[in-house]
């Protein structure tokens, strides 16, 4: 499932995938895969993304059943 919330939060901060990746310290592909829902990230990576995008885990990663 695509993570559109993460994509929107990144756009809100006016960051490209590459810039966000650089801030976190991962590759651009990892961010791309997270947004497209093809990669299941660890909690540590999720927290790092939230920290950079100034969002909570709920706001970016919560999915209703």
């Amino acid at each position, binding site marked *: 499932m695509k993570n559109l919330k993460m994509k929107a939060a990144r756009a809100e901060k006016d960051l490209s995938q590459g810039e966000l990746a650089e801030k976190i310290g*991962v*590759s651009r*592909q990892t961010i791309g895969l997270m947004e497209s829902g093809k990669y299941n990230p*660890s909690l540590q990576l999720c927290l790092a993304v939230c920290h950079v995008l100034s969002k909570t885990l709920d706001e970016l990663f919560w999915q209703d059943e």
Partner: protein
Amino acid sequence: MRWFKQKVKDEWIEQTKNKIYKELYVLVVLLCFFSIVYKETVNPEPFNLPVAELLILAGTGIYYTIRGWQFGIFSAEKEIHDRSSRIPMTAKHFIYTVAGGVGLSLFFGIRSAVVYGEGTSQSVYYFFLTFAGSLMIYIPVMLLLAFIPFIFTRAKNVE
């Protein structure tokens, strides 16, 4: 707050590498297997035993067993399996190994009857003789082999 501010490793790269290593291991096992088959069937030479291949296969197996036990993955697997299955994993291991022992003994018994037996009565005699002898050897050996994972999974459960 501090622990998630530590430097993030690109876990996708790490996981993808691990996936490739896993495939690589399967490739190595297959290469060893085909090398053994080649040395034993296509090009059998005296004193050309597949020692290196067997060492690789046994060594990696032993290493996996020890590391798996250290991390506790066997006891975790057993716990998950036993949660959803009616037959406990330990019982399954014992059933499979006994079946394996019986299967091997049957193979040797039939082989002995076909290759060395002359006439029906001798073939039947050779079959039962080899079958019983093989059972006496393989059942304890296979049970011992089945007992090893049992010990490894149990030890971590106690902890």
